[in-house]
């Protein structure tokens, strides 16, 4: 078996050259929304805001002095997540569009190395942005009159959490790009993933209620465990405080990384520009999409047209047919090869 270097200078150079603007924008956005906001609240804001800021961070939140201060990092994290999401689109979806992907496949590197390099560069961008931003923020806070509420340990923990969240989300969006043929489908699937869990919980509950599906105690106990919440991608970002499932999310992220490498290695370049690179995934997408649309259509039919099983079934039928037609139209659009 051939051994490959994991760090290929030519690939890192190319990825950096191609995406460096995104790194600077991520850095700029997080510095503005974290560092600048703190500096403003400490020194340049009206007195009332400055007082409120000191009062706010002196409050014990989740057992941590200055807990509210770290809550401010959330706005910076959103921009880092957005930047890493754009990065994943730039590295995969956009690369397919401008035929760089085909050029890369002709180079003397296995495809999984190409994918792994894209993943690593994203992680490095995320880490650089967070380390620089939080590092500077700590220096500013520690040298100010609120230094007694600031702890280097808490900043490090918070920084590591932010890196973890951003890395997991980036891994997911990159994974979606490994089998979608256009950047628009990569974006659409990502948005779907962020909201899918809540949507599914809602429509399945409705289905169970309408058809009075009974579950055994053992099934119910499995359903009631909090394990399922770990697959709520939205919560990977929004969950605050204790109980964050680093273990499960790590495992999911590692599987997504390996899955992405595997799929990217088997990419059929001739399908670039189609919604999906693999016909099998396109079929699965249609089936799953139709089922979800039927569940949603059933909910609408029941709640807004006829509050009975007939209303649900009719709504489900209309939803399924409409969804099938829409997906068929969209999957046959091929904007650019």
């Amino acid at each position: 078996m051939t051994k490959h270097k994991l760090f290929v200078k030519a690939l890192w150079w190319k990825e950096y050259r191609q995406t460096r603007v995104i790194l600077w924008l991520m850095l700029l956005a997080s510095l503005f929304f974290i560092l600048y906001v703190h500096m403003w609240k400490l020194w340049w804001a009206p007195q009332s805001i400055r007082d409120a800021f000191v009062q706010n961070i002196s409050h014990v939140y989740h057992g941590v002095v200055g807990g509210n201060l770290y809550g401010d990092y959330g706005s910076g994290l959103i921009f880092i997540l957005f930047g890493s999401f754009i990065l994943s689109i730039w590295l995969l979806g956009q690369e397919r569009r401008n035929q760089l992907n085909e050029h890369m496949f002709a180079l003397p590197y296995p495809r999984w190395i190409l994918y792994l390099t894209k993943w690593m560069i994203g992680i490095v961008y995320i880490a650089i942005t967070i380390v620089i931003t939080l590092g500077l923020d700590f220096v500013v806070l520690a040298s100010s009159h609120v230094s007694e509420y600031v702890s280097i340990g808490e900043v490090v923990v918070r920084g590591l959490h932010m890196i973890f969240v951003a890395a997991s989300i980036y891994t997911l969006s990159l994974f979606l790009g490994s089998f979608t043929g256009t950047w628009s489908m990569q974006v659409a699937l990502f948005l779907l993933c962020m909201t899918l869990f809540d949507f599914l919980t809602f429509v399945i509950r409705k289905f169970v209620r309408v058809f009075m599906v009974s579950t055994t105690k053992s099934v119910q106990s499995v359903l009631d465990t909090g394990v399922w919440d770990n697959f709520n991608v939205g919560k990977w970002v929004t969950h605050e405080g204790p109980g964050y499932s680093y273990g499960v999310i790590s495992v999911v992220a590692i599987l997504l990384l390996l899955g992405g490498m595997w799929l990217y290695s088997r990419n059929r370049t001739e399908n670039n520009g189609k919604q999906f690179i693999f016909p099998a995934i396109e079929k699965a997408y249609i089936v799953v999409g139709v089922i979800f649309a039927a569940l949603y259509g059933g909910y609408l039919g029941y709640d807004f047209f006829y509050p009975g099983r007939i209303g649900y079934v009719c709504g489900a039928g209309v939803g399924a047919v409409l969804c099938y037609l829409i997906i068929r139209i969209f999957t046959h659009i091929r904007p650019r090869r």
Partner: protein
Amino acid sequence: MMRVTDVHKAIDGKPILRGVSFTIEPGKIVGLVGRNGAGKTTLLRTLVGVYDPDRGSVSYDGKDIHTYAACKQDVVFVPDAPAALEMYTVRECAAWYGMIYPKFDLFFFTSAMERFKLPMHKRVRTLSKGMKMLFSTALGLATKARLILFDEPTNGVDAVAKKQLLSLIVDSLHENNSIVISSHMLSELDRIADTVVLLQDGRTEDVWELELLREQMKKLQVVFNGDKSPMWLHREDVFVLQQVGRVYTVILESNEAMTELQELKPLLVDELPLTLEDWFIGKAGDNDDEA
């Protein structure tokens, strides 16, 4: 050097390559010819690993190129437009290729850029179509890879630059390396190629050694006695390239055809120089262009 064995490739369910087999020997320029849609570009992309074949294999020095990507240190593809490099400057491209290909010859590349008067600091996207081809040809050749595949390298290049470009390609050929050129410009291939692979309907219809071809084949202009065209014209080893009145331009594939022609005692038999284009029209043109 490279062995292509029974390569099949379908795109969108439509078979493009339906059994392509040939070998590329070191020290040769191989021309890849075929009518539009014959599968030339698909074949080149399959040879370098951009596409995976549905069936068959492509091996380089005995190693499957689709399994051992490292083989591609020595196999470089120059597409018909450097779309993937458009965002970089000429200098950046050279620097990048220098990192990818250990034998990259920066001196060769910069000399070629000076010769073609291409500025190193310009972005590739700002170059004209012809300049882009000159740039990407020089970049590909500068890798000093043992096998370089060009897809329509002279597309959009003016006559002077075309001459320079072809001489650059020919001068880069040594006994250890090979060059594959897919082109519609048969007159160019006629001058520089050693071997020509004819693709027809996604298959390797024929592989010609041009030197041998010129020795074995004859192009004649013939005028027969009488108004009726003889059955001789329908022989399998006779291709009618053109008919103007009673004057036939034909290609003869065998000596037997020549002997039989002499027995017919035609009014005129005149031997003409055989070109690759004549042979290509004879083989790929369905004999439907008789005037």
